[in-house]
């Protein structure tokens, strides 16, 4: 234990051991004596001999109110890293907002595995004055549309979509009328 204290005093102890050892110094009188003695020896070897003021200072400290400072601020390197991360996150957020808000960006429709984008069948042209209410993918073949219309009541999403199933039905019917 004292050998670790000796290394701690020299700044040669692993950081992980340091906190535990400083904690022991609070309660272990023998370790505390060694701390004082080792520093006295170092000072004596350097010719720095003088009165031991520790006792007097400790007595004065007992009369002092306990210091409770706010948590230490980050180091300069820590602050720099924090600012860099914040700036990068801000730039990424701005880029995402610009991309999603721009007219050229559109989320790709999601298809179930197996159907993919390679759905066979003719492409249905959509008129320019077509209402925006039609939210179904534009590349759906007539057969698929018919299938979806026929099975819509059994769809698990029907209860969640509210007016959408009805809107889709109307849109398809209008398209059918135009044909």
């Amino acid at each position: 234990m004292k050998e670790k204290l000796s290394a701690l005093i020299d700044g040669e102890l692993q950081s992980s051991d340091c906190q535990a050892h400083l904690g022991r110094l609070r309660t272990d009188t023998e370790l505390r004596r060694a701390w004082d003695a080792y520093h006295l020896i170092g000072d004596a070897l350097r010719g720095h001999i003088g009165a031991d003021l520790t006792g007097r200072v400790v007595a004065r400290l007992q009369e002092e109110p306990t210091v409770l400072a706010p948590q230490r601020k980050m180091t300069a390197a820590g602050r720099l890293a924090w600012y860099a991360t914040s700036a990068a996150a801000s730039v990424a957020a701005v880029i995402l907002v610009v991309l999603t808000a721009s007219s050229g960006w559109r989320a790709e429709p999601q298809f179930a595995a197996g159907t993919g984008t390679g759905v066979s069948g003719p492409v249905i042209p959509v008129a320019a004055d077509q209402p925006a209410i039609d939210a179904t993918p534009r590349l759906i073949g007539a057969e698929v549309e018919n299938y979806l219309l026929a099975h819509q009541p059994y769809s698990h999403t029907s209860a969640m979509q509210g007016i959408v199933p009805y809107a889709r039905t109307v849109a398809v019917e209008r398209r059918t009328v135009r044909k």
Partner: protein
Amino acid sequence: MDERDLDRQLVERAQRGDKHAFELLVSKYQRKLARLLARFIRDPSEVEDVAQEAFIKAYRALPSFRGDSAFYTWLYRIGINTAKNYLVAMGRRAPTATEFNSEDAEGFEDGERLRDVNTPESVLMSKEIARTVSDTMDQLPEELRDAITLREIEGLSYEDIATIMNCPIGTVRSRIFRAREAIAERLRPLLETRKDRRW
């Protein structure tokens, strides 16, 4: 982790209300600070008073210590300011800014013989401690004496000492510890009789 990191950890503990941590810093730096103050305060008992006051001021000012400089550099400035205020209050000339500046703090080691900062009551004890340390050093095996000399007087790291002594770092650590323990064992009877001991 170097010595500065150790001081920083002790300061952080003291800032969280651990007075024992600050006592460890007092124990570590008291003689270095007293030696600095003795450069411009002649009376040894006054040096002790000013050093004590400087430590108390440092303790009170702990919340403002941000760790931008080393703890001793910060303590050094407080010590100099306390000494200046003391000398002004006593109607004596305070040291000018050019006589002492904080850049000296880290490497404060002057070759000249400084004034003895002991009070008359402790002169004998201080001489006895110095003699005991010196005698024990002479009696130490050469490898222990070299290891502690390279560390305490030359200020070398364990890695550098290992290179010089051509041995593993673990051996250096063990030799320095054994040297310290041997000297501490010889000092123990003296230290236990000191009036100003707190244990």
